[in-house]
């Protein structure tokens, strides 16, 4: 096997020992005090022996990475499995670290096997890598390194290996959902009297624990007090209208990539929330129609969202619109807003 190049970088304790050893050697040569020779030889011996061992130990380390995780979210973890095999005959690899990288990202992450890989043995190291970018890309190992023995230096060996591509969904964004649902409020006649009536009749769809993002009005305080946790009662009220969302990724609308990515994150948060509220039927991204009736369809939509790119011109203008069709439009403060056809037309006319 081709010998791999191992780079050594001295760390602070190593520098200390090296400088003390060299200083003692110089001191001995000038002053001829024998104990300085002793100190110098011991310190330098430790440093050099440690370097030789670090190199020899790491020489036999082979790293491969695999992942059985096809999808991940950009702010979540993708679980990967590192296989560390020590091909040395005698020397163990002590506490090896592996640098992992998400392709297309500059951020390096290290995973450590908190133990010793004995010669001729291999270990499997399950670890998780934090995903940062939406897209479809593999996870790669860059290099493996170790600080042992003595932590004097960092011996680093190149270890190239990568997983199958992982679909990374956009991350979820924190934003005020109610602000975006303003449109909806104007469309439905859902006033205070209706709400009181609904809560009194207590025709509940389901009773569940409070989740972040739920309206405070839905909290049933009496029940919450009894159960000692916040309980939300979802009213059995099916909205008459199911909405269809239209998303246009034209550069014209999403001027900067940051804004575009933020929009995608918000969409990735908005859609599940609307599904939870059962007011969303489908979403059209540019000209691709994604019905959202089942989980599988939702996954298909999310996969599409992770691969979507900006387009040159607006493509959804020509689409037929009904009363319940809402366009996802940029908003200066909120990031996105849901707009009806006339508003869009008005905006584009402007």
């Amino acid at each position, binding site marked *: 096997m081709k010998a791999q190049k191992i780079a050594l970088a001295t760390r602070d*304790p190593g520098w200390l020992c090296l400088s003390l050893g060299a200083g003692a050697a110089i001191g*001995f*040569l000038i002053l001829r005090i024998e104990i300085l*020779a*002793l*100190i110098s030889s011991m*310190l330098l011996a430790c440093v050099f022996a440690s370097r030789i061992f670090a190199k020899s130990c790491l020489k036999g380390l082979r790293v491969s990475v695999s992942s059985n995780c096809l999808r991940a979210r950009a702010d979540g973890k993708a679980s990967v499995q590192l296989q560390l095999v020590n091909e040395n005959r005698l020397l163990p690899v002590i506490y090896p670290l592996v640098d992992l990288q998400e392709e297309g990202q500059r951020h390096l992450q290290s995973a450590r096997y*908190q133990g010793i890989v004995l010669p001729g043995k291999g270990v499997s190291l*399950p*670890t998780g890598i934090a995903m940062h970018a939406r897209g479809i890309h593999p996870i790669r190992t860059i290099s493996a390194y170790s600080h042992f023995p003595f932590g004097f230096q960092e011996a680093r060996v190149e270890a190239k290996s990568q997983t199958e591509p992982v679909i990374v969904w956009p991350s979820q964004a924190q934003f005020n959902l109610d602000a975006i649902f303003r449109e909806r409020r104007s469309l439905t006649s859902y006033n205070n009297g209706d709400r009181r009536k609904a809560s009194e009749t207590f025709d509940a769809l389901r009773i569940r624990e409070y989740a972040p993002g739920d309206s405070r009005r839905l909290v049933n305080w009496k029940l919450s007090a009894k159960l000692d946790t916040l309980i939300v009662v979802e009213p059995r009220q099916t909205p008459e209208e199911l909405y269809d969302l239209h998303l246009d990724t034209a550069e014209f609308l999403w001027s900067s990539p940051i804004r575009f990515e933020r929009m995608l994150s918000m969409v990735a948060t908005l859609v599940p929330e609307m599904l939870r509220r059962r007011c969303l039927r489908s979403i059209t991204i540019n000209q691709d129609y994604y019905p959202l009736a089942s989980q599988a369809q939702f996954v298909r939509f999310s996969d599409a969202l992770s691969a979507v790119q900006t387009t040159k011109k607006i493509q959804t203008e020509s689409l037929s619109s009904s009363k319940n069709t809402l366009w996802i439009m940029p908003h200066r403060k909120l990031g996105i807003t849901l707009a009806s056809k006339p508003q869009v037309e008005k905006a584009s006319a402007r």
Partner: protein
Amino acid sequence: MSSPAPSPDGIRPVPYAYWMLFVPALAAFSLVTSNYWMAGAISVATVSLQLLGHKLDHLHHRLETATRWLLISGAYALALLPRWPGELSDHHWLPLVLGSAVAIASATLKQSLGLGRATLSMVAIGALLIARNLVAAREFVFPMEEWLGLAAFVAILEIGRSRRYRNSSDTLDVEFSLSLGIAILASFHNNSPIFAALTVAMPIAGYLLRSHTLSKTVEDLVRFSETALPELDRTRRPARYLGGAAAALASCVTLFSFVGYLALLQVPSWTDYVKDAPYLLRSTGEKVQSIAETTELDTEPLKGLANKIRQTDSQTERTGKVNTISKDRASPNSAPATELRTAIGEGETRQSPTRKSVPAHGDKTRQNVIVLQPESPVDEAIATPDRWTASQGAIFGQSTSATGGQSESRPATPSIADPPEGPVPATEQSEQQHDNSTAFRSELRRMLAESIDLTIDLPELADHDPQPVPGFGGGIVIEETSRAASLSPSLVLTAKLDNPDAAPGRLYLRYNVLDTLTPYGFIDSRRETDFETAELGPRATPAIKGFKTSRSADTNLTITVVLGDSQTLPLPDSFESIRIAGGSQVLYHAKDRIIKAPQDQQTVTYQIAAADLDVESQEQEAASLSSEYRQKLLSVPLPPKERAYLKRRAESIGGRRTDSARFAKRIASYFAARHPYSLDFAIPPGDEHPTVRWLKEQSDGICSHYAAAFTLLARSRGIPTRVVTGFSATEYDATSGRFSAMALDAHAWIEYLDESNRWIRFETTPPASLEVLARFRNAAAERSPLAGELLVAQEEKNLDTVQPQAPAETSEATSPVSKEPIVIDYDFLAKVKTMPDLSPTQTDSLPGPQQPENEETNEETPASKPTASKIEVPSSIPDEPKAEEETATPIRGLPASAETETETRAPVSNPSSFNANTLIICLLLILALGYPIMSFAKKAKESLNTPTKQRLRAKAGQLLREVEELTRQLNLTEDPVWAEVRASLTAQRYGPATNKPLVEDLAVKVALLAKAQKKRRNV
């Protein structure tokens, strides 16, 4: 290796890294300061702080700071106050304030790195010492050695109380550097390579351990995998921690260190190539070289002597002529063996050659001494070897039976010594023993005579021995004192005390009086005409004019001295009378109280009656001291600048108006504090007088430096003072009652004239530390084992020659030793064991030479006691036939005898040979290893007592790993049975409850699976 786990009682154990850095630093510190109390106190305080530190942390902040401040300021005060001389007693607040200030800084700057604080303390202490020197000596001198000692103190304090050991993720860089620093300091006080290696290797190992542990636990931006969880880590750690790699790593480090060390030592010194290298560096090398050369120089002649003796031995064996050497050499000083033997055989009353001590009768222990008793009847000589050995067996059998039957007596020839009928009647037995013992005694005496005879006589020994330089005979030279002489082990004199009770710890013998300062040192100013003559009377010398009548009437001394180049005789301070062997008159010098040695002799033996030995400051009336001589004793013929310096220094150290006794004590304590005793002295070159340079430089020194410096200082203060040279013998053999002095015992002290016009002897040399003494003893080559015996034999000869001159009553009157039996060291029998004719059965019954020899035995045994544990031989036994001596067995046992002699003398004579290094190394090892071993033992004990639940979990985890491995190998990962087993094991491992039978059941299943796998592999 990790740090010990916290114990449940809340006291957090000390981490190993701390221990490994602190212990060698502590040992090094104790060596640097020789202050074991302080080292102990610091170690106890700091280790308690380490143990209870986290409890202190919980205390109120101010209380904690106050506690620390108290501890540290106390330590500083203890360290600094002894450095403050008595004269400055008004300014004691200065070190106290400094200590308190440093302690405040130290207590409040808790989070400081330590190096800054240590540097601050060291700088402050340096400033304090300089201030002290300015005030005390009005000189701007930096006291390097004192400062180094205090630097070691600061370092040990910083290491000891460092908070970074405690449950912290900090590195120990500062502590590590300080620990190595103390190790370097300690190496200046110690020449043991083992100690040096230990004090260096242990902190390094501690630092490596710490660095290793830290890099295992602390990482930035590292996402630990699931296995990083501590509880998993413990169970999943491989059984073999590093395997052979640890050993390989350790040996690699050791090998590299060794090779690197040797390589560094091979690098030539740059001072060899530079003309004007700094004096200090150049002289260090020279000093080392000279000491090394000295030791080699001394061993070489000894080897030559040994070879010569060996050759003589073999020659004798070849020719069969025993006495050729001594007979051919008919010098007047060497008495031939025949003469000696005749002297014994003819029954002359003669003085005991050496020993006089005889054990008390009925002593339970076996005595290793044979007494040759003059009154014993004449016995027939039985000379055949068989008979001789038989008799010997009988004697020893009797001797051992006298000890209470502790060892069985086994005579070699039962027909003679032990009749088969049973116990012999007492009278018959004693008769038989008498016969046998007589035979043995005569044989023994013959051998003794031969042994003395065979060896080379004293002048020849002197030829082979390095030239003895008996104590600064002609004067002292400050700069060029011969280190070879100072390390020479050649025996110069032996002084026998007839009253062992009067033996002082140290015997001072005056040799010469030096009163004149030269540019190089001191010399005497006597002229030949100054000597007066006194006749030696038949009984004893009349009191020599000028010598004081002694106060110790009972103490008589017999001194034998190898004269060499010297002109005078070593004498005690005062005595009543002197008798010189072979001399009828003496030349003496009244003012200096010295006696001229006879010119025609190589060795002189003289007896001194009523000598004063153990009076510390011997006082002597200076009856008629001329004003001229007094002026001479006050003169300091130096340039005015140096005189002024000496006067200033004398007044600042000794005080302006102090009396002479107080002045002397102050100067002596000043020397002890500033000029440690060492052979490695270095006087820098310069134009000033070497003594002044020595005083200024605060160099190490030897006795002559102290004496010369004291004399100059005292004369500058107006105290008449002179240097006295001679011997200070400490090697005392209690059995023979003899002091021995070697060339290295040459000494110099002073005598000053006090206010009441008396001469006061004063010891100016500070006591050397044990390490320094041990170094000298190591550097000095072994003394020739024969020298002592030969000098004694020479003394005997000299006394023999004087005997006919002295009437019988004289010897009776002057020396009680003349009536004494001759005592032969029983160790002489060690050589008998090596005699070829001796059968092994008889050697069994020989008393071992390892019996203690040195017990003090002052009582005399009645000579007629046959059951005494000594064998008594009359010195009037007739000699054996002459034919016998021609065929006598060549002496092989002589070296053995000599060896045993030196062995037995060693423990008595040289208590300072005890090596303090060994003790410190042992302590260091015990301290360093004891704690980790105890900790491991405790851990092992704990693991035995771990709760069942934990053990079951650990076992389940182990089984789980095995099952995973086996099912993977056997492709059974999908098998529902094994999946269930895995699930059960996982539940046992990580679940809340454990089930012992279930785990055991699962263990059986796993074992079966492992068996199946093994079978499959075999197929």
